[in-house]
């Protein structure tokens, strides 16, 4: 996970300006595995103020697996980072997850000031699933 973090930071560092960074985020989003339409249920919806995120989280052999998508391409890029860092990781590792990577990427200001952008909610969902997973 730490290697992936470092990789992301390095990639981002190469980008010259915000337009390029968003471009990169959007590309990340497109590389995200497609979420099966049937999983985009009301129940899996994390409603943000300006964009929606769908999140289907499963506990499989002590590991957290999920599918996710967003109607916003930028948010989808962020979802892709969460996916890259945490999908398929052990419940223990997911429990330790924090948002500092977004701070380091310089994305935090953008995300934290968008009340209800869903990132905090996403993380809360993941951690809850990890807790449930561990107590099974």
């Amino acid at each position: 996970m730490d290697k992936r973090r470092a990789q992301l930071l390095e990639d981002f560092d190469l980008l010259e300006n915000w337009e390029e960074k968003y471009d990169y985020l959007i590309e990340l989003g497109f590389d995200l595995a497609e979420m099966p339409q049937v999983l985009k249920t009301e129940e899996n919806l994390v409603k943000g103020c300006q964009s929606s995120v769908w999140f289907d989280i499963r506990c499989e052999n002590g590991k957290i697996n999920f599918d996710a998508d967003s109607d916003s391409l930028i948010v989808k890029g962020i979802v892709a980072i969460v996916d890259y860092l945490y999908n398929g990781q052990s419940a223990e590792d997911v429990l330790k997850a924090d948002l500092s990577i977004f701070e380091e990427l310089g994305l935090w200001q953008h995300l934290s000031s968008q009340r209800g952008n869903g990132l905090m909610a996403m993380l809360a969902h993941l951690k809850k699933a990890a807790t449930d997973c561990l107590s099974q």
Partner: protein
Amino acid sequence: MARDILSARQDFPILDIQVNERPLVYLDNAATTQKPQVVIDTLRDYYTRYNANIHRGNYAIAYEATEAYEKARAKVASYINAEHKHEIIFTRGTTESINLVAYSFGERFVGEGDEIIVTQLEHHSNYVPWKLLCERKKAKFQVVPFDENGDLDLEVYKSLLNEKTRVVAVNHVSNSLGTINPVKEIIQLAHDAGAVVLVDAAQAVQHIEHDVQALDADFYAFSGHKMYGPMGVGVLYGKEKWLDAMPPFLSGGEMISNVTPEKISFNVLPYKFEAGTPNVPGPIGLAAAIDYLQEFDEQELRAYEDTLLNYGIGKLKEIPGLTLYGNPKQRSSILPFNIEGIQHFDLGVLFDARGVAVRTGQHCTQPIMDALKVPGFVRASLALYSNRDDIDALVESIQRAIKMLKGAKKHG
């Protein structure tokens, strides 16, 4: 001699900053406007030279602060052509002004079975307080819809008005669609039915006519921060006869004339409604903003803003896949749109990468979004310092964003 409007830009220091290595293109003026240097200087002058609590101090800086504060009241009264200076109540903003009326007028004059009419074009601040009042008082909440052009349906309005109607709450300019509503007619009809009208002028007072007596408005609310004044100051105008008849809203210092454990008596207007230490430099800064606005010829200013709005509308309409919302009979300062297949939030974020600031989302007008059946849209909004370069930068940003987002889609 009135000033050249194109020279206004130089008075706003923030317009010189760089955002993401590009000059700021500020097109979120309906959310809040920027402040001219003279307003910023007025605040500094206050804090460095005569900051004091007002109305009760008998020393030099308290005299000066009180006089400046009360002169600001007189200036606002004359700006909106109120009959009396004590009809001007200073609040934090439009939202507080409207809540004051909903609580205080509502307490005294709205009861079970009465009716209140709002419109589907209202900002939440002129919708929710009335809805909650209706819940408290078991009154009926009625909503006038708008048509496919974004104009209010006056036939429905007329059919809703009846002898049980106590209050009609309507904005003069819609912050989402820019519709200029026929408030004069709406007021006339309401008065004929025996109802009072609150005009939400948050988006009007800085752009179009602002004469409360000509409109015959019973209440008129607006925010200083949307008209080049400081944050944290707003105005409630109310006709003397209503303000006199209404009970106080907030209570405490300043609004009291006599206090014993048995009985409280209240101060005269306007103090009755200004409890606690006010934001003293707020009104003083607002007065400076009004002075500033009046350096320009008002008719010229309106013509300038209209021409620029039409330039923007023309430019946007040329963009393939762009939907411009609303086509009202009269529109002020607002450009609401979406691009087919692109999420509005993404547009906002990408514009920002080029220094272009617009608002995206629901604009605190969920009833409008529900009526249009969209989750949100982009809103660019103009001020007196806006110019064609701003519009051109917006258009360029839209084109870039389309390329990035659609390009990615193909590639993905």
